[in-house]
């Protein structure tokens, strides 16, 4: 029975409803850490680990939480397909641990009946036994096991580790096939049919398959699989109303099992939740609290963004300078310092804001408030064709569009998912802030209004609003274009409030940050190297040393040539080829604009903080080549700000959208639409400004 090779080791899947603490259990079993949530449907990736401790090697897969094996969202499909051994995520799952919430046994039993019918051997783990104990009812594992025909049942409380060793021992002993008998425990379905394991690839969530039922008249399951057969089966299933009869039969199964289990219901935790909700969802205080919380998030991201970017930037440029004096000059030193090092700094600059926003979101999620925020936000979101489902993912767009687009995987309405994916990059991400801060501090006067508001602050607020309003408008338009007859109805669980465990929160923040670094970081780094090549080659015969020489070298580089090529396109906006270089370079990450501009405008390197001040002087000195007038007029600056607010200047976002939507055409259409829109709005903004400044 003992396996030595890891590839031959048995692989067991953790399956359960959302919010049953399945992921905390996975952490406890494997020692491998990953995220746990108090908000339905956040674990979208399938994670695998190896059971820790001595003894036989056992692999464990953590599957996304689902209510049923009839898949509708991408994450649900991953779970269903893994258990059925079909589709793109074909996994050789040898058995399943069906994780139930001790306070919600019946719901878990509904899912258990489906897992049983896939034919996969399974055992039951009743998690959150501590919460049930707090409710005054110890878990009746014996009764449950007996009602399930002798299936092993283990009670656990994952966060405190109770029962985890017993579960691990059970897994080492193996999950035997002989428990997977439904007929011994289940009443027959109305047709006398039991559900069979489908033989062909799972259809996409767009087609609702229902579970395949064997004894539908006219269907012979021994027929070889074919698309026609699949279509016929679906037709027959729909026509017979079997899908709904099946659901009813599964609830009867759950009821039947529950009859043999001792339970007590006092609902103390629910009552505590209700007391909190009396305020959090109050008709007046609820929305006020909501606005307060969201305001705190934005304020936090904003307060952190610019100083963090400056601090990290100067740290890296100092380190780069140190490296250079240590290594001398040469191609590889240039590549390392100007290319790779600058690229890494462009990535690391985002970390403080990203970490802050993730911390905030994860805390909101784990306490259960995020589900309430989505509840409050649903009505306003509905006005533009979105729903509370997209609320949390879109909120993370204010840090970065990349995690936001990944988070949309849990949205089960595919039309809504596409709409939200399309508009997410319009919301002001933290990469725009350094650009805004530079341009605003350089050219917008610090006029004070009512002794409280500065013009600079108002302009910044206006840019945030511009992004939000455009996103809402775009969603509204797109919703009408893509309108579909049968939207998937909103159904979000409002879990009870829980005190988040600091350890879990810390693990999740680290994981999210790591995932961001992998997904966005690699693209930013790669594109930074491309930008370095473009701005450095063809190289001048003499290595540039002074700022003016560097500026001249840049002018002759590929990037300079590219800037000249696109100059006619951006000339109507008041931009010249030098700004063109900045726009091209900032495709790596928007804030690269600042460092590129400082090279273009021949700023002597004197450290980041002074560098910004020097850059402002450089900007003010800049002259137009045609008439020698000042390059940066108010109209040009406003146009540039509007352009950056709208344009999709971010290669990592484009790459992630292409992957997540499964279509390069979608990503390209998004990029072109936003670029065109940015151009038009910048043109309008410039001309409005010109009218005002002339009069």
């Amino acid at each position, binding site marked *: 029975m003992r396996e030595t090779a890891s590839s031959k080791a048995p692989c067991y899947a953790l399956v359960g409803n959302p919010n049953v603490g399945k992921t905390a259990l996975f952490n406890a079993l494997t020692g491998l850490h990953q995220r746990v949530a108090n908000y339905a449907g956040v674990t979208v990736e399938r994670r695998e680990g190896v059971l820790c401790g001595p003894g036989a090697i056992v692999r464990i897969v953590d599957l996304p939480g689902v209510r049923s094996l009839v898949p509708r969202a991408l994450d649900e499909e991953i779970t269903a397909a893994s258990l059925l051994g079909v589709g793109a995520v074909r996994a050789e799952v040898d058995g399943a641990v069906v994780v139930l919430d001790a306070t919600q046994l019946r719901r878990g039993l509904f899912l258990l009946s489906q897992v049983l019918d896939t034919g996969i051997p399974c055992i039951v783990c009743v998690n959150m036994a501590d919460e049930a104990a707090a409710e005054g009812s110890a878990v009746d594992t014996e009764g449950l096991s007996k009602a399930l025909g002798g299936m092993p049942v283990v009670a656990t409380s994952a966060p405190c580790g109770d029962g985890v060793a017993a579960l691990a021992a059970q897994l080492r002993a193996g999950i035997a096939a002989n428990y997977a008998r439904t007929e011994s425990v289940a009443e027959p379905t109305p047709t006398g049919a039991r559900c069979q394991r489908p033989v062909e690839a799972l259809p996409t969530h767009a087609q609702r398959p229902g579970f395949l039922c064997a004894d539908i008249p006219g269907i012979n399951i021994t027929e070889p699989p074919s698309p026609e057969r699949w279509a016929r089966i679906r037709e027959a299933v729909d026509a017979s109303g079997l899908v709904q*009869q099946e659901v009813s039969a599964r609830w009867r199964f759950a009821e039947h099992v529950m009859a043999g289990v001792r339970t007590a219901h006092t609902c103390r935790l629910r009552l505590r939740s209700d007391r909190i909700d009396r305020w959090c969802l109050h008709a007046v205080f609820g929305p006020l609290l909501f606005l307060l919380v969201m305001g705190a998030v934005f304020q936090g991201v904003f307060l952190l963004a610019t100083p963090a970017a400056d601090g990290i930037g100067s740290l890296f440029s100092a380190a780069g300078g140190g490296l250079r004096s240590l290594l001398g000059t040469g191609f590889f030193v240039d590549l390392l310092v100007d290319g790779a090092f600058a690229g890494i700094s462009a990535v690391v600059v985002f970390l403080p804001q990203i970490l802050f926003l993730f911390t905030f979101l994860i805390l909101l999620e784990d306490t259960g408030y995020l589900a309430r925020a989505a509840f409050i936000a649903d009505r306003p979101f*509905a006005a533009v064709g979105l729903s509370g489902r997209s609320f949390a993912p879109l909120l993370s767009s204010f840090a970065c569009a990349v995690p936001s687009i990944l988070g949309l995987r849990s949205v089960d309405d595919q039309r809504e998912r596409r709409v939200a994916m399309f508009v997410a990059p319009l919301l002001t991400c933290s990469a725009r802030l350094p650009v805004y801060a530079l341009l605003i501090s350089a050219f917008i006067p610090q006029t004070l209004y009512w002794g409280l508001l500065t013009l600079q602050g108002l302009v910044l607020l206006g840019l945030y609003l511009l992004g939000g309003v455009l996103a809402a408008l775009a969603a509204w338009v797109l919703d009408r274009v893509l309108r579909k007859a049968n939207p998937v109805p*909103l159904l979000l669980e409002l879990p009870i409030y829980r005190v988040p465990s600091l350890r879990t929160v810390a693990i999740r923040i680290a994981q999210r940050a790591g995932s961001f670094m992998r997904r966005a970081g690699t693209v930013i780094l790669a594109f930074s190297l491309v930008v370095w090549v473009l701005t450095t080659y063809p190289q001048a015969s003499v290595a540039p040393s002074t700022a003016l020489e560097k500026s001249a070298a840049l002018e002759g580089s590929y990037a300079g040539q590219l800037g000249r090529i696109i100059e006619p396109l951006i000339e109507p906006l008041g931009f010249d080829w030098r700004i063109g270089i900045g726009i091209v370079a900032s495709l790596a990450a928007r804030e690269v604009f600042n460092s590129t501009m400082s090279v273009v405008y021949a700023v002597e390197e004197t450290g980041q903080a002074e560098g910004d001040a020097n850059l402002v002087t450089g900007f003010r000195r800049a002259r137009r080549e045609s008439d020698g007038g000042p390059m940066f007029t108010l109209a040009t600056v406003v146009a540039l700000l509007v352009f950056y607010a709208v344009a999709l200047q971010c290669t990592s976002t484009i790459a992630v959208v292409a992957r997540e939507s499964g279509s390069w055409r979608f990503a390209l259409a998004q990029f072109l639409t936003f670029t065109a829109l940015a151009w038009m709005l910048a043109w309008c903004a410039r001309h409005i400004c010109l009218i005002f400044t002339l009069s």
Partner: protein
Amino acid sequence: MVSELTCGQQEPARPVVALSRMPEGSSGTMAGLSGDDLIALKLAEVGFVPGAKLRLVRRAPLGSPLEVEVDGARFSLRAETAASVSVYPHA
């Protein structure tokens, strides 16, 4: 299409109301579901089946969605979805 889950024969005399029209804090027994299959299936999977005890906990500050308790758990669903659920109100 009217769902086949409707089981009017149990208590034919009692009046039914739409879940969306129940007063906040009131409860009832689910009578049936109308509307398309997808909505019916999705609701049924979380416990909205005839005979289930439902409670309308509250409406969101702007009137929709609703917070509904079923079988010990709370779900938010929009008013238009709740309109397809019919309930025998408890006195």
